[in-house]
């Protein structure tokens, strides 16, 4: 079993409480940071550690912190706990089970970035996660870990837990700030970037929940120790959320660079494909990333290798699709998500996601025509790179990669009016009426 960093002690009973968290060494990293390091030294430490953002884009964390504009405006930290990318279920677990690790990361990061007010933006649907983080914040205030002069230092910090209310787009950093400011969650034009003009106009750091929860371990163990995990360019460990048609789905923390095959087939992790079927495809980083074919199974799960294979590590949501599943139905389902979650601010995405879904659904139900397949690609071309924010691009990933890999399945839907494979195909249709892909 490889060494655990972010999920270490996650299963200890009562670790969600301050007392037990401290028994297991909690908040010693904060004490060390305040006692032994100047803020700039911590920024440097993050750079050396190689930590990269776990929210989606994989931006180097230390570098992000160093970009904060030096002006007289108050600075802010936003913890992005809006977790809603299909296939991603790690931040919820961290918040529910070990909220103090996140909070310790928030406090250290605030100190490193000269922030005096930090926000933890928790997705609205995650009621228990929000309650757990709120409880941790209350405990921390009572113990002098938040508020004025933390642990006797001259550093003071206020933390506000803010609950979302159902909008995927609020996970996009500028929309998150709009939402925090009490408006509709429409993305902002960039530049200026949040590090320059962010929340309430102040320089703002925004990091994912898992990213921030990794910070205490790096302070405690040292940047070199953390950088000893993973690969040359993708350092450390991360939580892979394994889901879909695999025997043992689950959250598995592994060093970056672990082969996809290990995660999916090793008995300690995925344990192989559900029902001992054949692997058909993998979506390696949440539904916004490009689909990879089964031939990519030996790709190491690190930022560079997955990019070279034609996709992205994204949010760490590894979605496994077996040969039992009709790809057209699966893609139609993913497309519905983007149609429903498009904020409507810009035309290519608002209209494009609607039409892409319409066309996919008519193909899925056997009413499509051959030219619909190229029409889909044409629409994708008009949405990707032409939308106001990355959600538009994201909506096209599964469609373009899906058609490239499995065009014959789309064509089969046109010529035969039903699925080529899976429960929706002719042979099995009468047996499993309610199963996946048959609708």
């Amino acid at each position, binding site marked *: 079993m490889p060494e655990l960093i972010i999920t270490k002690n996650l299963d200890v009973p009562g670790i969600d409480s301050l007392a037990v968290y401290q028994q297991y060494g909690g908040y010693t990293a904060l004490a060390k940071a305040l006692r032994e390091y100047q803020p700039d030294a911590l920024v440097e430490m993050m750079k050396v550690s190689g930590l990269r953002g776990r929210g989606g884009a994989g931006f180097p964390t230390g570098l992000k912190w160093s970009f904060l504009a030096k002006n007289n405006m108050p600075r802010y930290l936003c913890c992005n706990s809006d977790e809603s990318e299909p296939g991603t279920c790690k931040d919820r677990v961290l918040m529910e089970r070990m909220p103090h690790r996140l909070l310790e990361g928030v406090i250290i990061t605030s100190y490193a970035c000269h922030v005096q007010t930090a926000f933890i933006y928790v997705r609205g649907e995650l009621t228990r996660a929000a309650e757990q983080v709120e409880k941790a914040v209350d405990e921390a205030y009572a113990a002098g870990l938040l508020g004025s002069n933390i642990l006797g230092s001259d550093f003071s910090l206020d933390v506000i837990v803010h609950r979302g209310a159902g909008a995927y787009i609020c996970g996009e950093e500028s929309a998150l700030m709009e939402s925090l400011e009490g408006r509709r969650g429409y993305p902002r034009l960039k530049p200026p970037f949040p590090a320059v003009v962010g929340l309430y106009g102040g320089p703002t750091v925004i990091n994912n929940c898992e990213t921030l929860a990794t910070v205490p371990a790096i302070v405690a163990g040292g940047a070199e120790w953390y950088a000893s995990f993973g690969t040359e360019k993708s350092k450390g460990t991360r939580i892979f959320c394994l889901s879909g048609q695999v025997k043992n789905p689950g959250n598995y923390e592994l060093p970056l660079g672990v082969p996809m095959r290990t995660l999916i087939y090793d008995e300690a992790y995925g344990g192989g494909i559900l029902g001992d079927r054949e692997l058909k495809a993998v979506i390696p980083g949440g539904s916004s990333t490009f689909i990879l074919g089964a031939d990519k199974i030996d790709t190491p799960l690190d930022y560079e290798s997955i990019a070279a294979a034609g996709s992205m590590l994204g949010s760490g949501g590894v979605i496994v699709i077996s040969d039992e599943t009709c790809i057209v139905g*699966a893609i139609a389902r993913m497309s519905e998500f983007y149609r429903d979650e498009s904020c409507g601010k810009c035309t290519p995405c608002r209209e494009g996601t609607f039409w892409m879904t319409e066309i996919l659904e008519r193909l899925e139900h056997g009413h499509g025509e051959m030219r619909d397949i190229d029409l889909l690609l044409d629409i994708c071309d008009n949405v990707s790179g032409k939308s106001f924010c990355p959600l538009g691009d994201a909506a096209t990933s599964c469609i373009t990669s899906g058609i490239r890999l499995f065009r014959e399945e789309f064509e089969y839907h046109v010529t035969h009016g039903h699925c080529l494979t899976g429960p929706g195909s002719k042979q099995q249709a009468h047996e499993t009426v309610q199963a996946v892909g048959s609708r």
Partner: protein
Amino acid sequence: MISEQAKQRMRDLASRYPVARSAVMPSLHIAQLEEGYITAEGLQAVAEAINLTIDDVESIATFYTMYYQRPQGKKIIHVCTSISCYLRNCDALVEHLEQRLQIKRGETTPDGNYSLKTAECIAACSSAPALQVNGEFYEHMTNERADALIDALDQELGIERRV
């Protein structure tokens, strides 16, 4: 009705944030907790507590799907239908619940006890298929587990027998 305590909590929130306007979302949550959905009175209370116009508050309330525009069942069931749950046959789960509750997705039972909704990915992908009842998670669902859940909820709601 929005209670005086609720209004006070909204005002407290308005002074807790660096800018009062930021309190609009938590205040809407409070209003909804009081009345079950966002009523005209709820909008007004939020507007007054934060010093915004009612139209302004309404435009925010209508952007976010968790603020309900009409009354909901006592138990709101959200079944995730995004890709990871789809690959684990959530559609059959939704159909099963539709039959059991005798309503379609998006509807509320005539007795006002249950609302059945489909939801976008609820961050339970590794324990699919999953659903939430009033925000609480139920994971690794099967039709049997769904029946047991509804039985337990029926009992809690004092429903004798469902035909």
